[in-house]
């Protein structure tokens, strides 16, 4: 397929858009600002602390197809080493993202090219998610001694376009789904008066903020799992996890959710990463321009405004789905169980 053919495809969608107005006549050729179908399932990896399977673009009557991402979050305990090198733990915990692509998803790429691609994706994800402004408050275990390391794994099972938006959606889903086991700092406090053992053990009254670095080493030396059965409370900052929106730019017009072919034909793509700490206020967490084309600043400004609108749509839609999923896995499952007996 020649380059012009790709361009033709993209132009096809554009021309259809122009001729039919903003309404799409066919699911196969959605409107410029419409997304393909998104399916999402959480809790797919039982041994992980949080997991999600996201598919973008698979229609309901198909069993394969679409951009598919399996995401999981795993929590590991690490020692906090104040002033240590970067490979050791950080006060208050940290997030490390790792994106893998199954070779099957990119069978046309060589191993080296695949590595490059993975690195590109990982960098964009890591830049945003590992940023201190997004650090969840409950990744600390014992201030100054132990913290959780959240290892985020995203595996691209197949890619039929708009991989960035899919990655961020999956990442948001998995971080939303992640639960941090409850821990209790154990310390020994000399107790002269009482002889009852129970008073010797004390638990942290509340979890410490990860941002507060003023505290020196806590007296607690070790921790224990408070409740070894419970998945624990959700990872903090659920509402903060961002979504991204990729605007595929043609001169004078942009469209969303490009397929692989459309992407190939698009000269410039603008990736905007937004989070919505409150409904009204959006926070821009990242912006990337991909592609050989150029654009002037005034245009970007209007695009950013547009992008915020799209992002909010995605954000709300995703939230509804995530809440739904959570309900499915808890209350509904329990209902089903009681129905069975």
């Amino acid at each position, binding site marked *: 397929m020649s380059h012009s053919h790709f361009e033709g495809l993209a132009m096809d969608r554009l021309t259809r858009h122009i001729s039919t107005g903003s309404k799409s006549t066919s699911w196969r050729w959605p409107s410029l600002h419409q997304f393909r179908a998104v399916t999402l*399932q959480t809790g797919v990896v039982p041994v992980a602390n949080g997991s999600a399977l996201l598919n973008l673009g698979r229609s309901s009557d198909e069993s394969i197809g679409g951009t598919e991402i399996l995401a999981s979050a795993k929590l590991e305990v690490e020692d906090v080493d104040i002033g240590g090198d970067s490979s050791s733990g950080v006060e208050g915990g940290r997030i490390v993202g790792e994106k893998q692509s199954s070779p099957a998803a990119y069978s046309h790429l060589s191993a080296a090219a695949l590595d490059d691609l993975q690195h590109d994706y990982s960098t964009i994800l890591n830049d945003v998610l590992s940023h201190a402004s997004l650090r969840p408050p409950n990744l600390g275990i014992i201030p100054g001694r132990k913290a959780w390391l959240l290892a985020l794994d995203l595996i691209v099972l197949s890619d039929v376009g708009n991989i960035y938006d899919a990655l961020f959606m999956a990442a948001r889903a998995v971080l939303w789904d992640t639960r941090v086991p409850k821990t209790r700092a154990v*310390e*020994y406090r000399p107790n002269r008066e009482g002889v009852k053992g129970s008073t010797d*053990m004390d638990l942290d009254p509340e979890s410490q903020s990860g941002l507060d670095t003023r505290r020196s080493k806590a007296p607690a030396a070790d921790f224990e799992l408070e409740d070894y059965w419970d998945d624990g409370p959700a990872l903090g900052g659920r509402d903060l996890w961002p979504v991204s929106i990729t605007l595929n730019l043609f001169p004078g017009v942009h469209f969303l959710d490009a397929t692989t072919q459309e992407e190939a034909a698009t000269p410039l793509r603008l990736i905007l990463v937004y989070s919505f700490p409150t409904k009204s206020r959006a926070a821009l967490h990242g912006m990337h321009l991909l592609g050989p084309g150029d654009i002037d600043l005034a245009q970007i400004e209007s695009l950013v405004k547009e992008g915020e609108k799209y992002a909010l749509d995605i954000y709300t839609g995703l939230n509804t789905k995530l809440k739904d999923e959570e309900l499915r896995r*808890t209350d509904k499952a329990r209902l089903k169980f009681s129905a069975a007996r």
Partner: protein
Amino acid sequence: MVEITIRKRQREDAAFTQRKFFKKTARGKVIKVVRERYLRDDVSCGIEKCRECASTLESHLPFSGAVDHKLFPNGHFVLPDTNVFLAQMDLMESSFFRSPIILLQTVLEEVRHRSLPLYNRLKALMKLDEKRTWMFYNEFRLKHNFIHNRETAVVREVGESPNDRNDRAIRVGTAWYNTHISLTRPPIRGRPVPVLPTIVLLTDDVGNRLKAEKEKIPCSSVQQYYLSTGALTAGIKAGQLYQGHFNANQFNFLEGSVTVEAYSKPVLLIGRENMNRAVQGDIVTIEVFNEQEWKAPTDEVVDQESTLKNDDADESDEEGERIVIEEKAPRPEGLSRPISEKQPTGRVVGIIKRNWRAYVCHIDSTSLNSSTTTSLSQQTVFATPVSRLLPRIRMRTRQAPALLGQKILVTIDKWDITSRYPEGHFVRALGKVESKEAEQESLLLEFDVPYRPFGKAILDCLPAEGEQWVVPPKGAHIPAWRDREDLRPLNICSIDPPGCEDIDDALHARRLPNGNIEAGVHIADVSHFVLPDNPMDAEAAARGTTVYLVDKRIDMLPALLGTNLCSLRPFVERLAFSVIWELTPDAKIKKTRFTKSVIASKCAFTYEEAQIRKDDLNRQDDLTDSIRLLNTLAQKLKAGRMAAGALNLASPEVKIHLDSAESSDPIDVEQKELRETNSLVEEFMLLANISVAEKIQEAFPQTAVLRRHMPPPKANFERLQDILQKRRGIPLDVSSSGALAASLDKCIDPNEPAFNTLVRIMATRCMLSAEYFCSGSVPKDAFGHYGLASPIYTHFTSPIRRYADVLVHRQLAAAISYGTLHASLHSKTHVEHTLDVVNKRHRMAQMAGRASVEFYVGLALKARGERSATLRTGKVTEEAFVIRMFRNGINVFVSKLGIEGLVTFKRETRFDANNYTFVIPGSGQGGEDVVIAVFDKVTVSIEVEKDKNTQRGKVKMTLFKPIVDSI
């Protein structure tokens, strides 16, 4: 064709098909574990003739349960909650508890989670024939087309704690059983209404009991006193708690100590609360108090028997605190003591490991309610352990009257927080008190000496020829002669104590043409017979050492080897391992070589015979020359060693004269005499050991078996230094072994020759004991032997009676390329482990030996007392030295008998702790004050009296001179 379908479980079912939990590993990682749960509807209830479940296995539970309980005339089954097994395992195990038990899977898993030992006991209980137990897999039972309204699989509710969920599962299980029984036994018209047994939920938990709608039997609730393991580990990691072995104080049963690395002095635990039910030898976790609360050890003798004689075994629980306070009250002068004497003080907060075993005890006769021998009623009595380090043990028995006056074996089962005494049970009787057999066996048991005869597997490892085994005639292809030197022509002789059967060393010396002297030490080649990794080797390793009691020897190796094939008897050829030196006439080593050899000893001397032979100037034969040569060399070696700073220590060694072999009644005790020849043998053995140590360390730097003697911490000498300085004005320099040796030499009282020996004995007690170690496990600068002032040392010379020597023989043989080293001796962990056992056995053997001597000294004294009573010569008196002072008594050492004794005063005394003196006012002949100080010579009258309560023979000393202390 069979259609194969893969029935994949729906992910939607995960909530009840999967069980997830987190686990914290020992290394501090957190792992999420997911378990699949397969639900099924055919989990059997286990009750006989059940309509629903009959088709399954053979049923274990009787149809109508147990019908003997008056609360449940219709019969009942017991369904215990987890806490019942955790707290009342003894009850459940009791053979009087006959109710059929339904054990829920939930309960079993919870027990396993909480306590592995209890889990194992529970597993054993399930297998008992006399118990009727049915394990019900309640977590797996779920019916999809249900007939019962309830099933037993339970899914956790939101926010429910695991404990609550399990409690609910247990309640649901109980309810299910009751419904199950009523449904499967419906009333049938025309027949009597069926009698339905009840399932009784047995629980200790008030909350669970309240929630349970069904019948329940309440049990007592459990109290927890020790900290949880989690808090303990955290405390130890944070350096706030310490872990160590608990040592009881033998003079004061309300005091103990724990030695921890963080403090140079042992941490003191005063009072029953702070000792917190620790028993001698337990590994405990302790907390150390703030420094201002540190105390000095008591200077008072508190005897358990006299202080607590009014305790009633049946009801001593309630008034526990009162006596403790009483005992503590009279200690005001503790505050005025100098700070330096204060020791770290703390309390036990947790027990890591109990080291309980069976203890030899006597029944305390006063604790018996009814002593008529026919009485078979259950009584609670006190058993007093022979060892003063142990608390009295309370036990319930029906045989109490019959056991009076016997030595019995008692084990401790538990020690509850509410109890002042540990609870135990009677194991077996050893025999009448003071009968030789009972005393001997009790001694061996008390010191954990393995004394069973050697088994067949072990004896099978001996040479088939048995007593007839001889060194085969020399030949090129005889395996026994491979790489062996023929030393048969040499004038080799052995020098040992009289009556020695296991001769493991022999010596020779001769002049060489170049003016130097060749000296050789020949050690029995035990490793030729004891091959690695066979039953005999394993047994020897476990025994570790031969134990010498006064009238018995418990061999490490079967007697055939020990006293015959390995023993270097005279006039027969024996295999040996030889160390041969070329020494200058000044006893400087020119050359050392090691070789396996064949020797033929020319004579077996006793120390005395050798001494006489050497001193007899008329004897001019080669053998005598050889002894003289050895003697002169030994003197030079000794001088050299002393110059290097070796210590000449003393320990009280006495010898028991046995009347005759048959009766083995001792008639008298005498101190061992040391001759030149003792020193001769000793010097050459030391030289051999050092030479061998160097060789094996060079060949196997990682796994060489060595022996070391750590320098004692200076703090150990503080008291002795203080006493010497204050009483005699003699300084004691403990900066090095040489300095100590020199200052010990200066501790001389011209009027009292025994004074020096006394100080040496006391100094010896301040030292650490020597130990075997593996060269790879300690840094090279810690190899030294403090007492011998040698940088390296091992034991090579007594392989018949010490297992470490056998290992050294194997290593040396490999070092001289005689054979290959067995793989186990290349493994550091294996060597370490073996030496740990040997060290422990060695210590125990020494204590057993000492206790045996003490027992015979007691017998001898008793005999002497009886003799003097018949002859009306008055009381038996001996001279003794005061070695330690307490507030109400003195510790004296009777050097002639080698025993220590306690003299407590009955009259009013003034005790000056700072100057180590006692003032006994107005007791002198003229009414003046009499002063007794440490190191003073006193005369004590000694008698052996039987403790009325425990039947324990007890040496009792009372002051005879300067004053007669009587009431």
